[in-house]
Structures are given as structure tokens and as C-alpha cells.
């Protein structure tokens, strides 16, 4: 917590690594992790001011203020919810997320896939507009939409969430988890990653299927040998969401090397103690 506070930039945002420029993703995760800490109200206010200033006219957020395009980080900001962001900031962000989908599910791409005999896929979310849907932005967008309160977009949100579930289930790897989102390439099976498996499992909270059960088993096997702090955090969060985090799971072994990973480690610990900021 202290480390997070010390890493805040004078402009109010957080960098990925101390001393770097402020980016939207670590700022949103840092705020999510700090939000329950009353003594740090002023850093939170400064962080929220940074986010408000960074929001684009289309309602989304750019990865960094220098980038002239809203992108995947909008979902991370939206996790903060309307109470933190304010309804006037939050609603356009949610609307932006609802409007996005991977380019492979655009009308033209669907026609092309039909003509070339390629299978269709349910729409997920892309990292960057105009590109394909991938596991992490799909999972983050689903988590953001799951937290969205009832609003005018609610029917569309329900539909998009159902499609997101289908999209994730379609892209599981044969070894049990998820990688970035390409389970096969040129007839070769690709391997799962801890980070993407964990966040996908978290996004699939409340769902059950053979794919999810297999993914939980893969995640349990990976947790003790995971090589990144981010992977440990997401695996814990994902397994916890399905009641599959072993009670004898050791404390995280890896030190976070970025601010967003430090925040994720805190969020994961909080979730284990019963305060899950991704689902509440």
C-alpha cells in the first residue's frame, strides 16, 4: 500500500514503473486497490481527477493521454464503478464498452468467414478498436459490465455478457486454460497462460461447464509454479471465484515488478479476505 502511494506521479496518475509516465491501466488498478483505504482520500481524489481529464469525448479512455484513441483500458477504469467515477463519467464509459467488439465479428468479416468456410465466433472485445477480440480485454470488459448497475443499456449488457461467455468458452486451449486467445495456429495447439486463465475464470464467475472445470484444474496445477506476480494474482482471483482456491495455497511467491501488478496483488489478497473489488 505504501509503495503504491509513493509511486503516484505528481499529475495524479500512476506509472507502470516508478518514475515513468502516468498510464490509465495502473492508475485504475491503483485506485481500485486504494479505494477502501480512508486515510488515502487525497491520493484517490488526485487519481480520479487524472482519470476524468483523460476520458475521451467518445466516453472511453486512452491507454495513455498521448494516445488519440479509446481502447481496452476503458474496462479497467469502469471497474471503479459509478460511485467512484460519477455517473456522468461512468455511463459514457460503459456505453463505449458495449459498442465495442472484435473486428472478426464485423459484418464484412462474417461474410468473409462464411465465404472462406471459417467458423463464426461470438463477439468478444479487442485490445484496440479495429482488431480481433482476445481473452484479456474480453474478460475485463465482462467484469466491467457485470458491475454495471441497471441502466438504459441493461438489455444490451445482458446480451453482450452472454456473448462474452460464449466467446471465452470457444477460445479455451486444449490443455485446459486460456492463452491470449489463439488456441490453435496452423493446426498446432497453443499453450495456456496463467494470467489469461485466471482473468477468464474470474469473468466466468457463476458459470459452470466442463471447460470451466477443466480450466480450474489447470489453474490449480499452475499456481504453485507460476512465474509472475500477475499470474499468481489472477489465478487466485479466478479460482476463488469458482470456489476452487485450495485452502492450503501458499502466500504469493513472486514480487510484483509493476505498479499494476502490485495493485493486483493487493486486490487478490483482499478478495481472499472476502472483499472482491472485481465482483462487488
Amino acid at each position, binding site marked *: 500500500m505504501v509503495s503504491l502511494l509513493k509511486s503516484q506521479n505528481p499529475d495524479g496518475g500512476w506509472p507502470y514503473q516508478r518514475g515513468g509516465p502516468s498510464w490509465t491501466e495502473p492508475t485504475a488498478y491503483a485506485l481500485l486497490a486504494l479505494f477502501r483505504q480512508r486515510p488515502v482520500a487525497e491520493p484517490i481524489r488526485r487519481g480520479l481527477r487524472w482519470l476524468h481529464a483523460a476520458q475521451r469525448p467518445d466516453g472511453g479512455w486512452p491507454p495513455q493521454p498521448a494516445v488519440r484513441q479509446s481502447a481496452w483500458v476503458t474496462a479497467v477504469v469502469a471497474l471503479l464503478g459509478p460511485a467512484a467515477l460519477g455517473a456522468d463519467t461512468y455511463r459514457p464509459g460503459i456505453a463505449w464498452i458495449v459498442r465495442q467488439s472484435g473486428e472478426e465479428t464485423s459484418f464484412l468479416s462474417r461474410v468473409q468467414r462464411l465465404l472462406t468456410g471459417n467458423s463464426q465466433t461470438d463477439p468478444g472485445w479487442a485490445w*484496440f478498436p479495429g482488431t480481433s477480440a482476445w481473452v484479456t480485454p474480453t474478460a475485463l470488459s465482462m467484469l466491467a459490465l457485470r458491475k454495471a448497475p441497471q441502466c438504459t443499456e441493461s438489455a444490451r449488457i445482458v446480451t453482450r455478457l452472454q456473448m462474452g461467455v460464449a466467446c471465452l468458452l470457444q477460445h479455451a486451449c486444449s490443455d485446459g486454460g486460456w492463452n491470449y486467445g489463439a488456441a490453435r495456429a496452423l493446426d498446432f495447439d497453443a499453450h495456456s497462460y496463467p494470467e489469461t486463465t485466471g482473468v477468464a475464470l474470474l469473468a466466468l464467475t457463476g458459470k459452470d461447464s466442463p471447460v470451466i472445470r477443466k480450466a480450474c484444474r489447470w489453474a490449480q496445477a499452475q499456481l504453485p509454479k507460476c*512465474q509472475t506476480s500477475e499470474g499468481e494474482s489472477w489465478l487466485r482471483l479466478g479460482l476463488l471465484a469458482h470456489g476452487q482456491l485450495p485452502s492450503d495455497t501458499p502466500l504469493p511467491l513472486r514480487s510484483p*515488478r509493476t505498479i499494476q501488478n502490485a495493485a493486483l496483488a493487493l486486490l487478490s489478497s483482499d478478495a481472499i479476505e472476502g472483499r472482491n473489488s472485481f465482483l462487488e
Partner: protein
Amino acid sequence: MSGINRREFLTGSAGGLLLAGCGRRKTVRRETLVSVARRPDYTQELYGELRRVLAEFPLDVRGKRVLLKPNLVEFEPGSPINTHPLLVHAALEAFRELGAEVMIGEGPGHRRNTLDMAEAAGYFETIPRFEEIFTDLNLDRVAEVRLAHPQSRLQSIYLAQSAMSCDLLVSMPKMKTHHWVGATLSMKNLFGTVSGGVYGWPKNILHWAGIPGCIADLYKTLPAHFAIVDGIVGMQGNGPIQGTPKRAGVVVVGTDLAAVDASCCQIMGIDPHRIEYLKLAAGDVGGLIRSIHQIGEPVESVRTRFDLLPEWSGLRQS
């Protein structure tokens, strides 16, 4: 580039030589120097060998900022996926001895946790104070760069500031086959300068815009290049991740990435004329190959046929 584009640099007819003061100013020359050094293994001899090879190039890097850009892809220490840390350290030492301020930077395309991957690949163990000189290019400051005459569908791209602002960008790839473009070498390695923090993991915008065209665009856009290819143990078959080790026993070095990659293709038994990004970057691949002044081991003496996926069998050099 002082009003001269990459193709003019490669095929121009004036005399003179490459990196004038190692900055972006280049003088046109008829020939492009490519050195092939035989190196059977990753041993301490690599340090002396690389110093000797670099001395063959008229590099003036004293007081200049040199960014070494290795290829870090996956957490699989036993597999020849990543550029070997000993070669990177040897390059670091060699450029420092030439008076350069040397940094290392990489922005992997699939995995986010670059420092963890570097640790797994042995970089922390091999390179003293690695963290102090390393920049994760995915999380670096970004610069939006307009592409002058794009070969891809991109009009502009967000690149890592460290890659744009260095005086010499040294691409240090692993010699590997690649399931989307045939071979991944020093030009394809430039994808690591594209901001993952902006475009995500994978940097899928490069696929939608056309991978060969994006490779050519980056080659023409980024500042002064140099290449040191880790071909001691490369990867064949289903590269760049799931292939099998292939010992080629070479380090290939040169001032022009396209020329180096064309030479590497010949070593791998791949016809460089059939590599799409080389065609886009050089226009006339035959002219590019004729411009190469080969020193060190002759390509024929180190040629090692890399296995190709059936989809890429058409690349085979006859």
C-alpha cells in the same frame, strides 16, 4: 534519414560509409557489409569474437545512445525461443568498449511480464545490474509516428520512445522460422518496439494491417539500425514458439537489417526472394543481395537447412 530513404541507402552509388557519427545521417554506399561469424556454442569466447566482428564495421558510437533489442518471447528456458543472454551481454560489453551508453529494451508480443521473462531467460543472472539498464518497451513513453509511404494499412503507429530516440537501435533476434511470415529475423524483431501498452498482447493491429507491410514500415521508420543475429542455436519448424532447436552455429552481423536478414535466409536454406517483407522493404531483393559485401564465413560454408512447415515449403532455396 537526411532526405534519403532506405532503398536509396542500400542501392545508392556514391562512396562513403554508413553511420556518420552513428546518428540518423547516412552516406550512400554501394555495398552493405554483412559479417558471418562461426560460433559453435554460447561460451566466453563469444565476447572476444563479437568485439572482433564489430571492429570490422566503421561504427562511431562514442558518446552515443545504443539500444540493444533482443527477442524475448516466452517462459521456456530450455527452448531456443529467446535471444541468448550471453550474446546480449557480449554486445553490451563490446558497445561499451566502443564508448557507447548502452541500454537494453524489449516489448514482447504475447506475454506482459517482460522482466519476469527476462529473469527466466537468464538475463538477470548473466547481465550485471540488468534491471537498471533495461526498458520494457511495451510500457515506455510512446511517440505517435506518421508513416511516410506505408506498405501496410497503417497511417501512423505508437512506438516506444526509447526506440525512437536512441542513436543506434541494435536488433538482436533469434534465427527462427515463423509460421506467419516464413522467417523471423532482425526486421521482424522490430515489432518489439510497438507499444503493447497501447495495442495489447498480442499487438494484433500489426496482423490486421498486414504483417509483411508492417515489418517493412518499421524498418523504414525506426532510426539507424544495426543487427546481431543469434544463429548459434536457432529454431526450425513451427517457430517462433513451438519449433525445435536448430544449431546453425553462427552470429550474423550487419549495418542493414534487410541485408542481414537476406543473408540469414540463405544460411537457413530459405530463398530471400520469396520472403514478402524483404520484397516490400527492398523492392528488388536481387539488388539487395548483390549489394551485400560478405565478410567472415562464406554463407555456403555455414548453410544449415532449417525445417519448414509444409505451408512454407515454397520458400525453400533451390
